[in-house]
């Protein structure tokens, strides 16, 4: 059976490029090296898919020819005054480029999923700047790894294993063995706690999540990991130390750490419930590291303060660089969400929320971002490519999206495609068609084709080119 090696995984922003796929009779039968999400995608991508285009007629979606679907989609977009073109982070850079051309042609707003993901991070990076690097550098050199408001064990399952704490680097050893002994310790503690409860015949409260005394492993001269989150996530269980922050209090904690890094005194005993002495010890470890990295997730961008939280995190890293070497990186979600920001910026000068309604690109998140436009009820049609806003936008915004004509290009059946007026199923990029995508650290990698797509499914790029051609023909005829 043919085995395709070095396949990139089209799921999360870690964009692992060491997957091995075994193909039999043009069907994927075995997947090696992928995480649970990657394996689920490669083995099940075809199990819930629509292969023929659909148009809503008398309230029902009915199968039509590709030509009819493209014609209808083009009519909707060409006749709209202020259409939204949304999605893009689960497709290739080549398709995104055509999407931008289409947005300019129809004078619409083109936005991508970073608007509800790391949009606030981009706003802050534009304000403050970022000290960043590639994941390869961190794998080999980072000795202090922070995950703040991010749970890589669930959202980027191989991140810790491939790029940080458990990776075997040239200059830093994997912390895997230390974790195993710590795990044994945690399990023994839990067993002891249960035995005490059974013996006493009553429930004694569990020990608090944030231990006030820092573990000795944090003081050793080796790779260590600290997780800051509102709950003790799976990633926090792996970490050397877990700092529990109260919901919506990240800004306060980040600013307190900044003050301590700058040798300023805090005139309180506790910050968000954490004793200042504990914070002082953490800051000492931060300053004492050789190379630190702060990965941050949606725990910062989605909670109160939003981009101000990221301002504080970026500033903390800037302050730390006066004392040691420290870097920071957002944990990007979809496999090509970084690529979509890159291609948008090449083409328009702006990374997301780009408005072409004036004939030239404008960018003003809050005004030109898709959730705001929907909530204000300003758009009159939408094209969604490789995304599922009906499932993930706040319901109030999703209702406005569904009220107006909706065109969907997606290989999967999703709540958005079920609600659409025109559905054009495409081929799975990274499985059935090739392309390019950017890993979370801005490294471009190729998406491979491992099996043939159904004959009725073109790539996102080809479908968009057909719609663009038809829109141009309609506009020429109209003029």
């Amino acid at each position, binding site marked *: 059976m043919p085995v395709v090696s070095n396949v990139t995984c089209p799921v999360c922003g870690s964009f692992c490029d060491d997957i091995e796929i075994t193909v039999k009779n043009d069907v994927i039968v075995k997947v090696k090296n992928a995480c649970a999400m990657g394996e689920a995608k490669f083995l099940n991508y075809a*199990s819930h898919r629509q292969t023929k285009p659909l148009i809503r007629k008398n309230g029902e979606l009915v199968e039509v020819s590709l030509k009819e679907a493209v014609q209808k989609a083009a009519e909707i977009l060409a006749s709209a005054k202020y259409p939204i073109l949304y999605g893009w982070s689960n497709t290739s850079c080549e398709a995104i480029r055509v999407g931008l051309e289409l947005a300019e042609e129809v004078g619409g707003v083109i936005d991508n999923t970073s*608007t*509800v993901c790391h949009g606030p991070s981009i*706003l802050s990076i534009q304000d403050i700047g970022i000290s960043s690097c590639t994941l390869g550098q961190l794998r080999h050199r980072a000795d202090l790894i922070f995950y703040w408001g991010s749970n890589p064990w669930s959202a980027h399952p191989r991140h810790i294993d491939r790029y940080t704490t458990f990776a075997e680097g040239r200059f830093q050893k994997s912390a895997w063995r230390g974790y195993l002994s710590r795990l044994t310790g945690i399990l023994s503690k839990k067993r002891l706690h249960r035995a005490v409860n059974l013996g006493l015949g009553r429930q004694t409260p569990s020990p608090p999540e944030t231990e006030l005394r820092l573990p000795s492993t944090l003081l050793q001269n080796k790779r260590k990991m600290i997780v800051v989150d509102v709950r003790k996530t799976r990633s926090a269980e792996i970490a050397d130390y877990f700092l529990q922050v109260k919901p919506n209090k990240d800004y306060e904690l980040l600013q307190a750490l900044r003050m301590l890094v700058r040798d300023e005194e805090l005139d309180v005993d506790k910050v968000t419930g954490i004793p200042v002495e504990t914070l002082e010890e953490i800051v000492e470890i931060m300053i004492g590291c050789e190379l630190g990295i702060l990965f941050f997730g949606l*725990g910062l961008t989605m909670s109160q303060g939003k981009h101000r939280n990221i301002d504080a995190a970026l500033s903390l890293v800037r302050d730390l660089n006066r004392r040691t070497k420290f870097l920071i990186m957002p944990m990007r979600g979809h496999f090509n969400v970084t690529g979509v920001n890159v291609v948008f910026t090449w083409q328009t000068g702006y990374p997301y929320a780009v408005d072409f309604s004036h004939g030239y690109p404008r960018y003003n998140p809050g005004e030109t971002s898709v959730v705001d436009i929907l909530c204000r009820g300003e758009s009159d049609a939408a094209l969604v490519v490789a995304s599922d806003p009906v499932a993930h936008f*706040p319901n109030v915004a999703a209702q406005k999206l569904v009220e107006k004509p909706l065109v969907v290009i997606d290989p999967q059946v999703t709540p958005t495609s079920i*609600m659409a007026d025109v559905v054009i199923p495409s081929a799975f990029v990274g499985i059935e068609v090739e392309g390019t995508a950017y890993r979370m650290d801005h490294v471009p990698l190729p998406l491979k084709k491992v099996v043939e797509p159904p004959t009725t499914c073109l790539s996102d790029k080809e479908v968009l080119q057909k719609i663009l051609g038809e829109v141009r023909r309609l506009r020429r005829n109209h003029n």
Partner: protein
Amino acid sequence: MPKLKVSLLTGRTINQGKGKEQGKLSEEYQNSVSICQMDPEDIKLLKVRENANVKVTTDFGSVIVKAVKSKRAPHSGVVFIPYGPWASVLANPKTHGTGMPSLKGEIAEIEPAITEKVLSLQELLRTCFRR
């Protein structure tokens, strides 16, 4: 009936991630996102058993989900619903001029709903969008 005021978090879980790749119409996906992870002590306060249905309400909507014991406890007063159509019913669309809705740390009320059922994805979409 007992009611609890809680802070609602939404986010990813590995089962949600696996489920979405298996297909949004798959049972695995729907079962992985129509749940509310609660501190076991909070479940006791609601006077329901684990896996009972509860109604979660915010200023923006309400939805029936299954209350499951959180393996990440203790986090009393904080409940977690994985990203998906059920969490989106409750989400705050206000972006405060950033483009980003407020999807974490929203105030919510939670109460037992033993006689009500958790809607399937199609039923939920029909209820929300009348399509």
